[in-house]
């Protein structure tokens, strides 16, 4: 079939025409082989521009289209849509970026014009070798994998599960509930959260559309939003692995308190009756706050910010739970004197400050301090610190509670690697953007919520959980169809020698090895066309549709002519 190539040059207002002599460009390219139209437009991406382009494609019965305009990042999709409307396969278009890559950066006008001509000639050479590609559609998988059965994971599962959508809730330990399970009461309401939690866990376990996989670990995730395949290993049931097909993944693996024994000055692990917050929480939950020797404490120091300097961030919840501990003590050991050794109070929002004010009293004092250290003096414990004036003070107490910094779980790095998402500088999961995508990640379809993203309160965790669930509900609608990449990799069996280099460099797990035929095969629904396989294949068996050898060869040949 004879080729009828149309070349359209956008002036982009004056962005391009100020620098490039459009008429000269038209004159040069109009006479090139197969070029039947070469004309310019003021602003091709405007509604008028698009309509006229569509009309011209039809009028001239163009078979291939070259648009010389701006970056494909701006308008590749725009012009592909025009092609579609004009009845032309959108992959028969080549967009040339003569704005960012020429008009804006080449100083000299004559040289810019020459360069634009060369770039357009190159595109014409390439577009001749373009072939029609068809985008296929698949129905999205609306099922969701939630990793981590703490409050975030529970909340999300309950929000998402419905007859059209199965939620797989994977939990590493044998029970659901996560960290919050260990708290008797929660601030600021001092309500018995464990009761709320138990109810929710009960609902999860009974839910027809939630599959709970406890004692299970995430091993692999491949695929993309709407079409993931996850492998989960169950550590009981004789180490069974299960493959789960889901459309989205939410990581809610929580956090852990850091170990204060690393910081010597607090004497943890060395001195009796120096406890971590979690140990105190459990002591309280057991119904009895007592010293090692069984007697009740008479004076307690709660040390805030243990490890904050080392970590470089505030753990957000310690000030509030320290106040909560003071309430526990007030209830169980009313006469005990409680000193809260803080450096900065973190009591933001509409309820925390009131909670703080209502907690403080004759027996509960805030002590602003720095350089806190715990040591043994005679029979008691001495807590030394520098007061606001910089003078050293010493408190004699019989119990010390440390509020250690909250850190990422030891699993965070591994899970991030499996999911293909980055970690923030502190090792928590990195959100896509603090304000534009606080529960999304750089990997589309992988969401995060709760303390895995950073230390936070139960209320903030629930807010994030609801946010992540909302994003999934609005986009992963059961039955909705989605287009899959057309510019995928293809592996020619007759060239493949089975070295598997492509498999080791594939970022999407889209290539598998056919052991019988000894060749690699691409799963085109998972492939995103990144080209790693084509680059690693010495045989030229792997190639990318729409970046074929012919296309690139023609492009380079013309560009260097």
């Amino acid at each position, binding site marked *: 079939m004879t080729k009828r190539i149309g070349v359209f040059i956008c002036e982009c207002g004056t962005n391009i025409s100020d620098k490039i002599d459009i008429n000269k460009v038209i004159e040069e390219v109009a006479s090139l082989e197969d070029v039947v139209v070469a004309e310019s437009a003021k602003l091709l991406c405007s509604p008028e521009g698009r309509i006229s382009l569509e009309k011209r494609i039809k009028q001239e019965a163009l078979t291939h289209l070259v648009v010389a305009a701006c970056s494909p990042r701006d308008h590749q999709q725009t012009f592909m849509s025009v092609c579609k409307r004009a009845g032309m396969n959108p992959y028969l278009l080549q967009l040339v970026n003569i704005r960012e890559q020429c008009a804006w950066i080449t100083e000299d006008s004559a040289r810019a014009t020459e360069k634009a001509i060369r770039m357009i000639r190159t595109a014409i050479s390439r577009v001749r070798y373009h072939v029609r590609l068809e985008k296929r559609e698949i129905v999205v998988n609306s099922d969701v994998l939630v990793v981590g059965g703490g409050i975030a994971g529970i909340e999300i599962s309950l929000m998402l599960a419905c007859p059209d959508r199965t939620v797989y809730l994977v939990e590493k330990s044998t029970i659901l509930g996560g960290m919050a399970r260990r708290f008797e009461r929660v601030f600021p309401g001092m309500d018995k959260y464990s009761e709320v939690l138990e109810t929710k866990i009960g609902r999860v376990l009974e839910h027809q559309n939630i599959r709970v996989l406890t004692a299970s670990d995430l091993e692999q995730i491949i695929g993309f939003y709407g079409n993931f395949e996850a492998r989960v290993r169950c550590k009981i049931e004789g180490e069974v692995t299960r493959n789960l097909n889901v459309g989205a993944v939410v990581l809610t693996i929580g956090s852990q308190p850091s170990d204060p024994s690393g910081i010597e000055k607090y004497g943890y692990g060395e001195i009796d009756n120096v406890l971590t917050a979690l140990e105190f929480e459990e002591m309280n939950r057991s119904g009895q706050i007592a010293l090692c020797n069984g007697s009740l404490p008479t004076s307690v120091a709660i040390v805030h910010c243990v490890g904050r300097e080392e970590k470089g961030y505030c753990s957000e919840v310690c000030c509030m739970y320290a106040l909560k501990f003071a309430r526990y003590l007030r209830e169980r050991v009313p006469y005990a004197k409680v000193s809260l050794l803080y450096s900065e109070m973190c009591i933001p929002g509409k309820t925390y400050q009131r909670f703080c004010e209502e907690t403080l009293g004759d027996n509960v004092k805030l002590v602003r301090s720095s350089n806190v250290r715990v040591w043994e003096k005679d029979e008691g414990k001495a807590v030394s610190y520098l007061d606001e004036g910089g003078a050293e003070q010493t408190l004699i107490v019989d119990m010390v509670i440390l509020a250690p910094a909250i850190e990422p779980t030891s699993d965070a790095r591994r899970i991030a690697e499996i999911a293909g998402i980055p970690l923030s500088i502190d090792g928590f999961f990195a959100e896509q953007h603090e304000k534009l995508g606080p529960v999304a990640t750089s990997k589309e379809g992988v969401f995060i919520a709760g303390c895995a993203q950073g230390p936070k309160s139960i209320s903030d965790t629930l807010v994030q959980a609801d946010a992540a669930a909302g994003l999934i509900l609005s986009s992963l609608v059961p039955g909705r169809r989605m287009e899959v990449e057309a510019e995928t990799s293809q592996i020619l069996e007759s060239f493949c020698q089975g070295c598997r280099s492509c498999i080791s460099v594939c970022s999407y797990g889209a290539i598998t090895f056919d052991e019988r035929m000894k060749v690699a095969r691409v799963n085109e629904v998972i492939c995103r066309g990144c080209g790693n396989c084509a680059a*690693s294949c010495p045989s030229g068996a792997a190639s990318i549709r729409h970046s074929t050898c012919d296309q690139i060869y023609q492009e380079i040949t013309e560009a260097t002519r």
Partner: protein
Amino acid sequence: MSNSVGDETGAVRLANQGGASATLISFLKQGMDVGVFDAVLVPMRVPAGDAFAYVLIRDIALLDDACPLPPIVAVQGGKVVSRLTRLGNGDLKVVAVMRPCELRATIELAKLGQTNLSNITLVSMDCPGALALAKFIKDPEGGTEIFEKAAQDWRDEDLRPICQICHHATMISGDLHLGLLGGDENHLLLISNSEKGDEIVRRLGLTIGEKSSVRVTEVQRVTQKRLAKREEWRSEFESRVKGISNLINSLETCINCHNCMRVCPLCYCRLCYFDSENVRHPADDYIDQAMAKGSLRLPPGTLLFHLGRMTHMSLMCVSCGACEDACPASIPIAQIFSFVADKAQRTFDYVPGRCIDDALPLTVYRENELHEVDEDE
């Protein structure tokens, strides 16, 4: 196979049966006799007498004619093992005997799914070098004499240039290694380097003795000498070959036969890209190019072919010299590749064929590599 050069912990003292070949053959016969392995893949002189070929031997009597260390590298052993095992390794337990460079290529090929070593035991020996193929074919008898003399005292001036600068000649990366260096009139050393090797030693009732300090010194001496020569040649060679115009000059006599690619054990592609239709174009293209440049050498792309091959295999190149032996135009192609490979491999701290567990550099990502090309440095 986890040990590398010089890591051997101990050696078996094999009774010297009148030379390395005879000693190794006797060992192989013993192994076959006891049934530790079922067949031996080993070079043998062809009936005409003027060449060598790998032969898969099942008949123990035929082992007498084997030549474990022939004067030449006729077919690269890596290629042979690949042909034997790529499509399935069968049930036979095979011992493959070859030079260290061939063995290293075999290991590289295993990483690329081109050899299957599950039923193969790799055996090698200290290698004094090999004679250039052309030189040997011109005078097989004289060649054999020269080689035997060189093998005696490790004077390698008459051997292939690539062998004279080989510093991996004593590398132990297979299952078993016959130490020519460090042996004496009464004993030769047999070093095991893997569980497979250990198992054979155990089943043959051999005992592992002390590590030979003589061998350590000897290996060091030979390696140092070769390394020194390598450095000396490198600077001289670079002045002739480095830079694009020098390289073009060095490849000027290339006749595009692609023999170097065909004999290279690591050019494992089914069809070389440079032999494919991808590099063939309509006449107009050639005429256009001729017009643009004034003239065009045909077929074009000689430099691109060599650079392309270099890109594909220089990280794995074991400097076996097969390419140079096969070059009818006497291009020192093995040396060119060897010096380039040196640099490429050092960049990734990679020694091809050292250990099957060392991943090919381009298939793994390490955070702490290639900082020299970081943008901000």
